[in-house]
């Protein structure tokens, strides 16, 4: 079991969708939201995903396919 932390940003047209709920249903992972800011035109969530690494990777792909931008919790670390 691994626990990885991500910053997930939603595009404007997905702000109203229950995306975190959906990936918890679609993949065998546990989602744990720790901080978020959702507004009319944008939204982001800092979330921990727990599960097998391969399953977390699949969930990340799923988030990207839904139009989300997924980064490590540190955002960009390549300087």
């Amino acid at each position, binding site marked *: 079991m691994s626990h990885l*932390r991500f910053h997930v940003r939603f595009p404007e047209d997905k702000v109203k969708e229950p995306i975190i709920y959906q990936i918890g249903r679609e993949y065998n992972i546990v989602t744990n939201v720790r*901080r978020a*800011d959702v507004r009319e035109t944008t939204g982001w969530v800092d979330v*921990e995903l727990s599960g097998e690494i391969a399953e977390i990777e699949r969930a990340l792909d799923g988030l990207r396919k839904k139009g989300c931008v997924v*980064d490590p*919790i540190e955002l*960009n*670390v*390549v*300087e």
Partner: protein
Amino acid sequence: MTKMKALVCRECAKEYPTKAIHVCEMCFGPLEVKYNYEEIKKAISRKKIQEGPHSMWRYIDLLPVEGTNFVGPHAGLTPLVRAKNLGAYLGLDELYIKNDTVNHPTLSFKDRVVAVALTRARELGFETVACASTGNLANSVSAHAAAANLHCYVFIPGDLEAAKVLGNLIYKPHVVEVEGNYDDVNRLCSEIAGEHGWGFVNINIRPYYAEGSKTLAYETVEQLGWKTPDQVVIPMASGSLLTKIWKGLHEMKYVGLIDEVHTKLNGAQAEGCSPISTAFKAGRDFFKPVKPKTIAKSLAIGNPADGYYALKATAESKGAMEMVTDEEVVDGIKLLAQTEGIFAETAGGVTIGVLKKLVKQGVIKKNEVTVAYITGNGLKTQEAVIDAVGRPTRIQPSLVAFEKTFKLGKNGGGDA
């Protein structure tokens, strides 16, 4: 009581011991160093600083290290150049260039942050240090690690230019070329930092690493005769440098080195990667990540970790933000070189381009004491200006040819 009180979450203010951690376990917010300013105030003075080492370590009382076994003992204390020619060109009475193109040992401001990071990493017991980088950071970590006998891993994207790879290989770190793009390297390094007990300078050592930038503020104030500038222009990549200059200026007030801070912060980005400046100009307190496309590679961070905090600090200071095109970046590099004899890398072109723009807009005024931060050396990004500097004047090897070409008489004078 030590000068470092704790690591504190920038979001929820929860405190942690001063170890190699960087994210709040409660809210996942970033951590930064909190100091015992009252204790520091008793120990620090202008005289003590002036009698200290000729490097940024003269400000050790305000840096997050415990001892004096420094990695990078010569970093910092770079010249603050009174830029009379550039000032006259722009219409500014008192313009200064903080010239980190000559920082030791790798000619960029990264030598400051890396010196602090590796000194702290060694204090925390790390024998291996690492970073993820496309340029200046990798150079600096590799060089400092070599000098400090630390094992070093540098992670780079597979498509990085050969010259930049060479700049790392010379110090013989483990250069790991990751098959993939920037995002792949980014994600992998975050995972490696979580799994291995290494000092990843811009990940788990980041709270200490970032503090090194404060020394640019301390030095500016000391070099101006213990006065804060009216305006500063700062290049932004992650946004960390701008926020730490702001923190540094205020710390000098907290510990009694200066009476007031009235400085306005001005952030500079390239148009091809300007998430922070774009948000500021739109009046937003949040930024939208972008895919970078600019020649200013050292500023090309599309999802900047300190973007939110840079927006906040700039607004607090009643400052401004701007962005410039790649063409203006090249013009800025040339202008600085041809007026002040300082060859800056592309980030310096961004800073000078934005300075020029802000003066034109009336944001920075003629009589204001202004400091522009030039953070890296032009020899590192020569490809950016190779088509913009002309060619040498070619002549036959004879005195006649020389004098004819340059229209010189016997007493000199003339021109080509």
